[in-house]
Protein backbone atom coordinates (compact mmCIF):
# COMPACT_ATOMS: atom_id res chain seq x y z
CA UNK A 1 0.00 0.00 0.00
CA UNK A 2 2.74 2.39 0.97
CA UNK A 3 4.41 1.70 -2.35
CA UNK A 4 1.30 2.89 -4.18
CA UNK A 5 1.12 5.97 -2.02
CA UNK A 6 4.75 6.81 -2.79
CA UNK A 7 4.08 6.35 -6.46
CA UNK A 8 1.12 8.72 -6.33
CA UNK A 9 3.12 11.25 -4.38
CA UNK A 10 5.78 11.24 -7.04
CA UNK A 11 3.17 11.65 -9.74
CA UNK A 12 1.58 14.50 -7.87
CA UNK A 13 4.98 16.10 -7.54
CA UNK A 14 4.76 16.40 -3.76
CA UNK A 15 7.74 15.88 -1.47
CA UNK A 16 6.33 13.81 1.41
CA UNK A 17 8.89 12.66 3.97
CA UNK A 18 10.30 9.30 2.86
CA UNK A 19 9.66 6.19 4.91
CA UNK A 20 12.13 5.27 7.62
CA UNK A 21 13.52 1.96 8.81
CA UNK A 22 14.02 -1.14 6.70
CA UNK A 23 11.04 -0.27 4.51
CA UNK A 24 12.80 2.98 3.78
CA UNK A 25 15.91 1.14 2.64
CA UNK A 26 13.86 -0.98 0.27
CA UNK A 27 11.93 2.05 -0.97
CA UNK A 28 15.10 4.04 -1.57
CA UNK A 29 16.95 1.28 -3.39
CA UNK A 30 13.95 0.41 -5.55
CA UNK A 31 12.84 3.96 -6.22
CA UNK A 32 13.89 3.98 -9.87
CA UNK A 33 16.21 6.87 -9.28
CA UNK A 34 18.96 7.18 -11.83
CA UNK A 35 22.37 8.16 -10.51
CA UNK A 36 24.41 7.75 -13.69
CA UNK A 37 23.15 9.34 -16.86
CA UNK A 38 24.62 6.71 -19.13
CA UNK A 39 23.10 3.53 -20.56
CA UNK A 40 22.86 0.92 -17.76
CA UNK A 41 25.14 -1.47 -19.65
CA UNK A 42 27.88 1.13 -19.65
CA UNK A 43 27.46 1.89 -15.94
CA UNK A 44 27.60 -1.83 -15.14
CA UNK A 45 30.69 -2.32 -17.28
CA UNK A 46 32.41 0.52 -15.41
CA UNK A 47 31.47 -1.05 -12.07
CA UNK A 48 32.77 -4.42 -13.25
CA UNK A 49 36.03 -2.79 -14.35
CA UNK A 50 36.27 -1.13 -10.93
CA UNK A 51 36.02 -4.56 -9.27
CA UNK A 52 38.58 -5.93 -11.73
CA UNK A 53 40.87 -3.05 -10.79
CA UNK A 54 40.83 -4.30 -7.21
CA UNK A 55 41.61 -7.87 -8.30
CA UNK A 56 44.61 -6.81 -10.38
CA UNK A 57 45.70 -4.45 -7.61
CA UNK A 58 45.71 -7.37 -5.16
CA UNK A 59 47.94 -9.35 -7.51
CA UNK A 60 50.35 -6.48 -8.07
CA UNK A 61 50.45 -5.61 -4.35
CA UNK A 62 51.15 -9.25 -3.44
CA UNK A 63 53.93 -9.16 -6.02
CA UNK A 64 55.31 -6.04 -4.31
CA UNK A 65 55.08 -7.79 -0.94
CA UNK A 66 56.95 -10.96 -1.95
CA UNK A 67 59.53 -9.01 -3.93
CA UNK A 68 60.26 -6.62 -1.09
CA UNK A 69 60.32 -9.32 1.60
CA UNK A 70 62.53 -11.86 -0.15
CA UNK A 71 66.17 -12.05 0.93
CA UNK A 72 67.27 -13.48 -2.43
CA UNK A 73 68.16 -11.28 -5.42
CA UNK A 74 65.24 -10.58 -7.75
CA UNK A 75 65.86 -11.83 -11.33
CA UNK A 76 66.71 -8.98 -13.73
CA UNK A 77 63.65 -8.75 -16.01
CA UNK A 78 65.70 -6.92 -18.61
CA UNK A 79 67.90 -10.05 -19.01
CA UNK A 80 65.29 -12.74 -18.37
CA UNK A 81 63.03 -11.32 -21.09
CA UNK A 82 65.80 -10.56 -23.57
CA UNK A 83 65.56 -12.17 -26.97
CA UNK A 84 68.15 -12.60 -29.71
CA UNK A 85 67.33 -12.77 -33.39
CA UNK A 86 69.41 -14.87 -35.79
CA UNK A 87 72.11 -15.56 -33.22
CA UNK A 88 72.83 -11.86 -32.61
CA UNK A 89 73.22 -10.16 -29.26
CA UNK A 90 70.09 -10.46 -27.08
CA UNK A 91 67.94 -7.32 -27.16
CA UNK A 92 66.53 -6.57 -23.70
CA UNK A 93 62.75 -6.81 -23.27
CA UNK A 94 62.22 -6.75 -27.03
CA UNK A 95 59.29 -9.19 -27.10
CA UNK A 96 57.56 -7.31 -24.27
CA UNK A 97 58.05 -4.04 -26.15
CA UNK A 98 56.51 -5.52 -29.29
CA UNK A 99 53.61 -6.91 -27.23
CA UNK A 100 53.09 -3.45 -25.74
CA UNK A 101 52.95 -1.86 -29.18
CA UNK A 102 50.56 -4.55 -30.44
CA UNK A 103 48.20 -3.89 -27.53
CA UNK A 104 48.36 -0.11 -27.96
CA UNK A 105 47.68 -0.49 -31.67
CA UNK A 106 44.64 -2.61 -30.81
CA UNK A 107 43.46 0.07 -28.38
CA UNK A 108 43.69 2.62 -31.20
CA UNK A 109 41.70 0.47 -33.64
CA UNK A 110 39.11 -0.13 -30.89
CA UNK A 111 38.75 3.60 -30.21
CA UNK A 112 38.17 4.16 -33.94
CA UNK A 113 35.67 1.26 -34.04
CA UNK A 114 33.63 2.93 -31.27
CA UNK A 115 33.77 6.22 -33.18
CA UNK A 116 32.58 4.65 -36.44
CA UNK A 117 29.95 2.74 -34.48
CA UNK A 118 28.37 6.01 -33.38
CA UNK A 119 28.56 7.23 -36.98
CA UNK A 120 26.52 4.11 -37.93
CA UNK A 121 29.30 3.09 -40.30
CA UNK A 122 28.70 -0.62 -39.98
CA UNK A 123 31.41 -1.82 -42.35
CA UNK A 124 34.23 0.22 -40.80
CA UNK A 125 33.08 -0.68 -37.28
CA UNK A 126 33.17 -4.40 -38.04
CA UNK A 127 36.52 -4.15 -39.85
CA UNK A 128 38.14 -2.20 -37.01
CA UNK A 129 36.74 -4.56 -34.37
CA UNK A 130 38.04 -7.53 -36.33
CA UNK A 131 41.45 -5.86 -36.52
CA UNK A 132 41.33 -5.28 -32.75
CA UNK A 133 40.46 -8.93 -32.11
CA UNK A 134 43.25 -10.06 -34.47
CA UNK A 135 45.79 -7.87 -32.67
CA UNK A 136 44.53 -9.22 -29.34
CA UNK A 137 44.96 -12.78 -30.59
CA UNK A 138 48.47 -11.86 -31.75
CA UNK A 139 49.23 -10.58 -28.26
CA UNK A 140 48.02 -13.84 -26.67
CA UNK A 141 50.09 -15.81 -29.20
CA UNK A 142 53.22 -13.85 -28.32
CA UNK A 143 52.48 -14.39 -24.65
CA UNK A 144 52.17 -18.14 -25.23
CA UNK A 145 55.57 -18.00 -26.97
CA UNK A 146 57.03 -16.07 -24.03
CA UNK A 147 55.65 -18.54 -21.47
CA UNK A 148 56.95 -21.51 -23.49
CA UNK A 149 60.40 -19.95 -23.70
CA UNK A 150 60.48 -19.21 -19.96
CA UNK A 151 59.19 -22.63 -18.91
CA UNK A 152 61.02 -24.85 -21.40
CA UNK A 153 64.26 -22.98 -22.12
CA UNK A 154 64.84 -20.96 -18.96
CA UNK A 155 63.39 -23.42 -16.45
CA UNK A 156 61.24 -20.86 -14.64
CA UNK A 157 58.59 -22.46 -12.41
CA UNK A 158 56.05 -20.98 -10.00
CA UNK A 159 58.12 -22.43 -7.14
CA UNK A 160 61.60 -21.56 -8.33
CA UNK A 161 63.97 -20.52 -11.10
CA UNK A 162 67.71 -20.44 -11.81
CA UNK A 163 67.96 -16.63 -11.64
CA UNK A 164 67.18 -15.89 -8.01
CA UNK A 165 64.11 -15.34 -5.85
CA UNK A 166 61.63 -18.22 -6.34
CA UNK A 167 58.72 -15.77 -5.91
CA UNK A 168 59.54 -14.39 -9.37
CA UNK A 169 57.83 -17.31 -11.13
CA UNK A 170 54.64 -17.33 -9.07
CA UNK A 171 54.20 -13.55 -9.43
CA UNK A 172 54.94 -13.67 -13.15
CA UNK A 173 52.61 -16.55 -14.01
CA UNK A 174 49.83 -15.23 -11.79
CA UNK A 175 49.86 -11.65 -13.08
CA UNK A 176 50.53 -12.22 -16.77
CA UNK A 177 48.34 -15.33 -16.78
CA UNK A 178 45.37 -13.46 -15.39
CA UNK A 179 45.96 -10.61 -17.83
CA UNK A 180 46.31 -13.05 -20.74
CA UNK A 181 43.00 -14.65 -19.72
CA UNK A 182 41.43 -11.20 -19.84
CA UNK A 183 42.82 -10.59 -23.34
CA UNK A 184 41.55 -14.00 -24.50
CA UNK A 185 38.08 -13.29 -23.07
CA UNK A 186 38.22 -9.84 -24.71
CA UNK A 187 38.99 -11.34 -28.13
CA UNK A 188 35.96 -13.64 -27.84
CA UNK A 189 33.80 -10.74 -26.59
CA UNK A 190 34.89 -8.52 -29.51
CA UNK A 191 34.19 -11.26 -32.04
CA UNK A 192 30.68 -11.78 -30.61
CA UNK A 193 29.87 -8.04 -30.69
CA UNK A 194 31.43 -7.54 -34.14
CA UNK A 195 29.36 -10.42 -35.47
CA UNK A 196 26.21 -8.88 -34.06
CA UNK A 197 27.04 -5.53 -35.66
CA UNK A 198 27.70 -7.29 -38.96
CA UNK A 199 24.54 -9.37 -39.04
CA UNK A 200 22.33 -6.45 -38.05
CA UNK A 201 21.42 -7.78 -34.59
CA UNK A 202 21.64 -4.31 -33.03
CA UNK A 203 19.65 -2.81 -35.89
CA UNK A 204 16.83 -5.26 -35.13
CA UNK A 205 16.92 -5.20 -31.31
CA UNK A 206 18.25 -1.75 -30.47
CA UNK A 207 17.14 0.39 -33.35
CA UNK A 208 20.66 0.65 -34.75
CA UNK A 209 22.23 1.81 -31.49
CA UNK A 210 25.81 0.57 -31.36
CA UNK A 211 26.50 1.51 -27.72
CA UNK A 212 27.40 -2.17 -27.17
CA UNK A 213 30.49 -1.42 -29.23
CA UNK A 214 31.50 1.31 -26.80
CA UNK A 215 30.88 -1.00 -23.82
CA UNK A 216 33.06 -3.71 -25.40
CA UNK A 217 35.60 -0.94 -26.06
CA UNK A 218 35.66 -0.01 -22.36
CA UNK A 219 36.61 -3.58 -21.51
CA UNK A 220 39.28 -3.67 -24.20
CA UNK A 221 40.86 -0.36 -23.15
CA UNK A 222 40.89 -1.64 -19.57
CA UNK A 223 42.90 -4.68 -20.65
CA UNK A 224 45.38 -2.29 -22.28
CA UNK A 225 45.35 -0.15 -19.14
CA UNK A 226 46.23 -3.12 -16.92
CA UNK A 227 49.11 -3.94 -19.25
CA UNK A 228 50.47 -0.40 -18.79
CA UNK A 229 50.81 -1.11 -15.06
CA UNK A 230 52.18 -4.63 -15.54
CA UNK A 231 54.76 -3.29 -18.01
CA UNK A 232 55.89 -0.63 -15.55
CA UNK A 233 55.86 -2.65 -12.33
CA UNK A 234 56.85 -6.11 -13.48
CA UNK A 235 59.04 -5.63 -16.54
CA UNK A 236 60.65 -2.23 -15.97
CA UNK A 237 60.95 -2.19 -12.17
Amino acid sequence: MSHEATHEDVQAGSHAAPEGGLRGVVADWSADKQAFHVPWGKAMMWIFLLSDTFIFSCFVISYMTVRYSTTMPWPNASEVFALSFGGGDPIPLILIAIMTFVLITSSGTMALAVNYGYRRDKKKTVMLMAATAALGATFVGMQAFEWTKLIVDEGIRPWGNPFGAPQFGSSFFMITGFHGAHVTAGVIYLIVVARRVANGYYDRTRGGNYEMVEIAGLYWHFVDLVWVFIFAFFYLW
Partner: protein
Amino acid sequence: MAEGHQQHPLGIYLWIWVLLFVLSAFSYAVDYYQLQGMLRWSLVIIFMLLKAGFIIAIFMHMAWERLALIYAILLPPLCILVLIGLMFLEADYTFFTRLVAFGPAAEIVSPHH
Protein backbone atom coordinates in the same frame (compact mmCIF):
# COMPACT_ATOMS: atom_id res chain seq x y z
CA MET B 1 25.43 15.51 -27.15
CA ALA B 2 22.75 12.87 -26.48
CA GLU B 3 22.77 11.15 -23.11
CA GLY B 4 25.71 8.77 -22.85
CA HIS B 5 26.44 9.29 -26.51
CA GLN B 6 30.15 9.70 -27.08
CA GLN B 7 31.01 11.12 -30.45
CA HIS B 8 34.19 13.07 -30.93
CA PRO B 9 36.36 14.04 -33.88
CA LEU B 10 38.65 11.28 -35.16
CA GLY B 11 41.67 13.55 -34.82
CA ILE B 12 41.76 13.40 -31.03
CA TYR B 13 41.91 9.57 -31.07
CA LEU B 14 44.74 9.59 -33.58
CA TRP B 15 46.69 12.13 -31.53
CA ILE B 16 46.28 10.09 -28.34
CA TRP B 17 47.23 6.97 -30.23
CA VAL B 18 50.48 8.57 -31.41
CA LEU B 19 51.12 9.89 -27.90
CA LEU B 20 50.67 6.41 -26.39
CA PHE B 21 53.19 5.04 -28.89
CA VAL B 22 55.70 7.76 -28.04
CA LEU B 23 55.24 7.28 -24.28
CA SER B 24 55.66 3.49 -24.65
CA ALA B 25 58.82 4.05 -26.67
CA PHE B 26 60.11 6.34 -23.89
CA SER B 27 59.29 3.68 -21.26
CA TYR B 28 61.16 1.09 -23.27
CA ALA B 29 64.09 3.48 -23.75
CA VAL B 30 64.36 3.78 -19.96
CA ASP B 31 65.17 0.08 -19.85
CA TYR B 32 67.14 -0.03 -23.09
CA TYR B 33 69.58 2.63 -21.93
CA GLN B 34 69.60 1.06 -18.45
CA LEU B 35 68.80 4.24 -16.55
CA GLN B 36 69.06 3.48 -12.84
CA GLY B 37 68.05 4.86 -9.48
CA MET B 38 65.54 7.63 -8.86
CA LEU B 39 65.67 8.75 -12.49
CA ARG B 40 64.52 5.29 -13.63
CA TRP B 41 61.69 4.92 -11.10
CA SER B 42 60.37 8.44 -11.58
CA LEU B 43 60.40 8.18 -15.39
CA VAL B 44 58.72 4.75 -15.30
CA ILE B 45 55.98 6.08 -12.98
CA ILE B 46 55.47 9.32 -14.94
CA PHE B 47 55.16 7.55 -18.31
CA MET B 48 52.87 4.93 -16.75
CA LEU B 49 50.53 7.50 -15.21
CA LEU B 50 50.44 9.60 -18.40
CA LYS B 51 49.56 6.54 -20.49
CA ALA B 52 46.93 5.38 -18.00
CA GLY B 53 45.47 8.90 -17.84
CA PHE B 54 45.17 9.26 -21.61
CA ILE B 55 43.60 5.82 -21.99
CA ILE B 56 41.01 6.48 -19.27
CA ALA B 57 40.27 10.09 -20.19
CA ILE B 58 40.13 9.87 -23.98
CA PHE B 59 39.83 6.25 -25.14
CA MET B 60 37.41 5.34 -22.33
CA HIS B 61 35.68 8.76 -22.65
CA MET B 62 35.97 9.52 -18.94
CA ALA B 63 36.83 13.15 -19.72
CA TRP B 64 33.34 13.65 -21.14
CA GLU B 65 31.37 11.77 -18.48
CA ARG B 66 29.46 13.42 -15.65
CA LEU B 67 31.21 13.90 -12.31
CA ALA B 68 28.90 11.38 -10.55
CA LEU B 69 30.31 8.57 -12.69
CA ILE B 70 33.89 9.86 -12.58
CA TYR B 71 33.89 9.99 -8.77
CA ALA B 72 32.13 6.62 -8.43
CA ILE B 73 34.77 4.89 -10.56
CA LEU B 74 38.00 6.80 -9.97
CA LEU B 75 37.85 7.50 -6.21
CA PRO B 76 37.40 3.94 -4.80
CA PRO B 77 40.75 2.74 -6.22
CA LEU B 78 42.44 5.31 -3.97
CA CYS B 79 41.73 2.84 -1.10
CA ILE B 80 44.37 0.67 -2.76
CA LEU B 81 46.98 3.19 -1.60
CA VAL B 82 46.15 2.18 1.99
CA LEU B 83 46.69 -1.50 1.14
CA ILE B 84 50.00 -0.64 -0.56
CA GLY B 85 51.13 1.18 2.58
CA LEU B 86 50.07 -1.67 4.88
CA MET B 87 51.68 -4.37 2.75
CA PHE B 88 54.86 -2.31 2.41
CA LEU B 89 55.20 -2.24 6.21
CA GLU B 90 54.35 -5.95 6.37
CA ALA B 91 56.93 -6.85 3.71
CA ASP B 92 59.54 -4.76 5.49
CA TYR B 93 58.86 -6.62 8.73
CA THR B 94 58.94 -10.04 6.98
CA PHE B 95 62.27 -9.12 5.41
CA PHE B 96 63.60 -8.13 8.84
CA THR B 97 62.45 -11.36 10.53
CA ARG B 98 63.95 -13.40 7.67
CA LEU B 99 67.29 -11.70 8.13
CA VAL B 100 67.13 -12.35 11.86
CA ALA B 101 66.04 -15.98 11.53
CA PHE B 102 67.92 -17.11 8.42
CA GLY B 103 70.48 -14.39 7.72
CA PRO B 104 74.17 -14.30 8.65
CA ALA B 105 73.23 -12.79 12.01
CA ALA B 106 70.94 -15.75 12.83
CA GLU B 107 73.75 -17.81 14.31
CA ILE B 108 74.61 -15.09 16.76
CA VAL B 109 70.98 -14.39 17.69
CA SER B 110 69.76 -17.98 17.96
CA PRO B 111 71.43 -20.30 20.49
CA HIS B 112 70.20 -23.40 18.59
CA HIS B 113 72.78 -23.09 15.78
